[in-house]
């Protein structure tokens, strides 16, 4: 069952450009409010009997209002919306029969089947699509125009036809603000010898409510994308009408609302502190220390809503790549993997240019070549570490609070998974170990050698730093590896470790015969080149996501 035209019985879909219901056959247009008021009050969906009088849309016309009209609206939504399930990943989506042309936004599968069962709970409000599919494709093309080494398929016009419109459930939290504790500093006197700095307590009265902090309500909709695709303009929010869903899909809430209470409070507090900082800087020239400032915040209420998104999903090697376009503002958020072939050509071009420059300006010495390899090893280890961490987080949904809360309601009640935490001294030292050793090396070298930098001493410290950093990184990746099916990160980091150990050994032994140096350097660089190729594959895995398995889906009422 779908929406039918009163004049000709043709399909009626929501037309983004006119923001009206439009008959695909005869072109008749009618406001979604008018269309639905008539049909929901009669409880029927009969061709030729839509309400054509002045709009009677009221605030009580919501699915959860509990009034007679609300109940009938909910019933109406249930009668016109169909539940679909993806046979590939188990995702459940609601839509009209006309929505079947689309693809599953979660896994990119094309087998959305009608499922038995009624419709899911609908929200109180929604923002209708403001960006049409054509405009969405255009925006995505503009967004990716300057992205280098993008896989060709993401520029392929026929592939971009697969953008699917979906309403994603969000919660909007209203946060009541309380007492503030804001501290700032200002240089009040500056002489060549000293700066006199005053620390101020800023008495900011911020009583009131911070309304509409949005967090996604679908367990299977990635929190990272959900946050990056924001903001939406709440002024365009409307009371929920099933008619808006005509031609699109809709996901239902599956995360308890309490999940994001504390996050909403932090967001509100941070925003207020930022605003106070801006005002105080402008008025008194005082710089607010944001880390030491806080405004009390308590989430008072929330309501459910739906935001429009265009989803494009590309499946590759059991991974999915998401491209999402904000259906209200047109903002684009996309996973951007790298095309290996065009990247290799780019590397070749860079290498030729660098070779010519080096030939003109640089006479390599064994020690400098070793240092280049060691520094390259450290940089590569840092990149592999960073990419592997992202893979681990995606595989385990470590940063996806909605996912975790959907699985374990206790976490939802605690609502503290993403609280800010300052690093411990040990963590800080680990993070800055390499820089610390490098600065130490330069300092000691200068102390020993007077004003000049002593390269052999610096190289020994760099080698020491590289070996330690690699040791820490290999340990971390081995720990993450237990929760990941991918083996490439481990292969890449072990290769880098091998190269660094060879090079460090040469630096420590410091053989007189250059042949040892150069052979070691050559072996090290060749290993690093192989590792770099795997490092790119690891980066590509980190930009994609595991294929979702949503068969154990639960719905939150």
């Amino acid at each position, binding site marked *: 069952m779908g929406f039918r035209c009163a004049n000709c019985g043709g399909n009626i879909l929501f037309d983004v450009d006119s923001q009206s219901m439009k008959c695909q056959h005869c072109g008749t247009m009618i406001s979604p409010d008018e269309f639905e008021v008539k049909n929901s009050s009669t409880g029927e969906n009969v061709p030729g009997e839509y309400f054509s009088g002045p709009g009677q849309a009221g605030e009580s016309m919501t699915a959860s209002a509990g009034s007679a009209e609300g109940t009938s609206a909910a019933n109406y939504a249930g009668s016109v919306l169909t539940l679909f399930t993806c046979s590939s990943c188990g995702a459940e989506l609601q839509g009209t029969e006309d929505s079947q042309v689309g693809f599953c936004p979660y896994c990119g599968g094309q087998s959305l089947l009608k499922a038995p069962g009624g419709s899911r709970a609908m929200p109180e409000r929604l923002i209708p699509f403001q960006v049409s599919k054509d405009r969405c494709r255009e925006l995505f093309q503009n967004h990716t125009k300057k992205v280098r080494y993008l896989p060709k398929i993401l520029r392929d016009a026929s592939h971009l036809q697969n953008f699917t419109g979906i309403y994603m459930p969000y919660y909007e939290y209203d946060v009541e603000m309380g007492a503030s504790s804001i501290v700032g500093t200002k240089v009040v006197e500056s002489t060549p010898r000293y700066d006199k700095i005053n620390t*101020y307590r800023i008495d900011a009265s911020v009583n*009131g409510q911070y309304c509409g902090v949005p967090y996604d309500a679908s367990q299977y909709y990635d929190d990272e994308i959900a946050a990056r695709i924001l903001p939406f303009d709440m002024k365009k929010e409307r009371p929920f009408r099933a008619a808006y869903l005509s031609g699109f899909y809709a996901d239902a809430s599956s995360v308890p609302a309490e999940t994001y209470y504390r996050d909403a409070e932090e967001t509100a507090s941070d925003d207020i502190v930022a605003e106070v900082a801006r005002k105080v800087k402008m008025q008194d020239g005082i710089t607010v220390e944001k880390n030491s400032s806080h405004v009390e915040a308590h989430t008072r209420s929330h309501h459910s809503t739906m935001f429009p998104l265009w989803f494009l999903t590309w499946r590759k090697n059991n991974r999915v790549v998401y491209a999402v376009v904000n259906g209200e503002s047109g903002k684009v958020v996309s996973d951007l993997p790298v095309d290996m072939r065009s990247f290799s050509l*780019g590397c070749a071009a860079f290498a030729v240019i660098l070779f010519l420059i080096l030939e003109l300006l640089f006479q390599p010495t064994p020690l400098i070549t070793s240092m280049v390899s060691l520094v390259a090893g450290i940089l590569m280890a840092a990149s592999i570490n960073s990419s592997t961490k992202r893979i681990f987080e995606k595989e385990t949904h470590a940063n996806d609070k909605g996912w975790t809360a959907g699985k374990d309601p206790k976490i939802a009640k605690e609502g503290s998974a993403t609280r800010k935490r300052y690093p411990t001294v040990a963590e800080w030292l680990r993070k800055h170990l390499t820089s610390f050793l490098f600065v130490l090396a330069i300092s000691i070298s200068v102390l020993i050698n007077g004003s000049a930098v002593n390269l052999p001493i610096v190289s020994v410290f760099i080698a020491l730093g590289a070996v330690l950093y690699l040791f820490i990184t290999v340990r971390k990746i081995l720990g993450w590896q237990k929760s990941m099916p991918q083996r490439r990160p481990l292969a890449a980091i072990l290769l880098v470790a091998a190269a660094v150990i060879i090079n460090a050994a040469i630096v420590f032994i410091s053989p007189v015969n250059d042949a040892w140096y150069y052979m070691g350097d050559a072996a090290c660089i060749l290993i690093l080149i192989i590792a770099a190729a795997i490092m790119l594959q690891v980066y590509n895995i980190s930009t994609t996501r595991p294929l979702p398995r949503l068969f154990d889906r639960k719905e939150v009422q």
Partner: protein
Amino acid sequence: MSNRMYTLTRPNMINRRTGTDLLKKSLLLVLGVLIICTFLPAVSVLAANQLVVEDDADILTPDEEARLIRDYSAITEYMGAAFVTTDVASAGTSAFAEDYAISHYGNSPAVIFVIDMYDRELYIYSNGTALKTITRADARAITDNVYKSASRGDYYECADRTFSQILGKCRGERLARPVKHITNALIAVLCGILLNYYLTVYSRIPDPEPRTKGEVNVSVTRQMASMPGISLALPIVLSSVKHYKNRSSGGSGGGGGGHSGGGGGHGF
């Protein structure tokens, strides 16, 4: 030296009439010789048109020294040239070579090849316009090419190959740098990949954006519908601290050049 010259003059040729003149001439001659002797270190090499060999470490035979002088004196057509060996402690081979060049050649172009047996290091130093012919990179490349001879103890071959390459460079020939090309190629490939990788990765990092679209302001009610705004009272001073600046930040510059030189070397 003056005494020696005096004894070379036969006594029967002295007559009384010219005795006073001769005495004056002799005094002038002695004075001249003394002046020459005073500046001898500075001008003796400059005046030479052959390779100077000072084998203080005694690592070459007289025959080998003679062969080096015979084969490579042609370098002096382009610049002064010296081969120096030492086996005493110094401030470093490069400093030793530089001191030698300054004391013997001043600002005149010269190339000095030093074998330092104490520090086990080879060093080629060139100065003035010679630095344009034998650059630091050239010096490094030449010592790279010959250090193995020194490691084997074949110092004549080491010096011979060194001056052969220096002479070739003076005549406009190119130095063989196989290691340089291979190493530069490998470094270029590795750095090319890393540079491209980091540019690609960092160009894909999205700019952070606020979660909400509204602003905390009385006049803006888009998202903070009931936000009454923020009223700020006069700030209260909690503390006042003086942060003293680093005293070494000032300073003076100065000094002057007048001598430029450089080189490259290699342990053996």
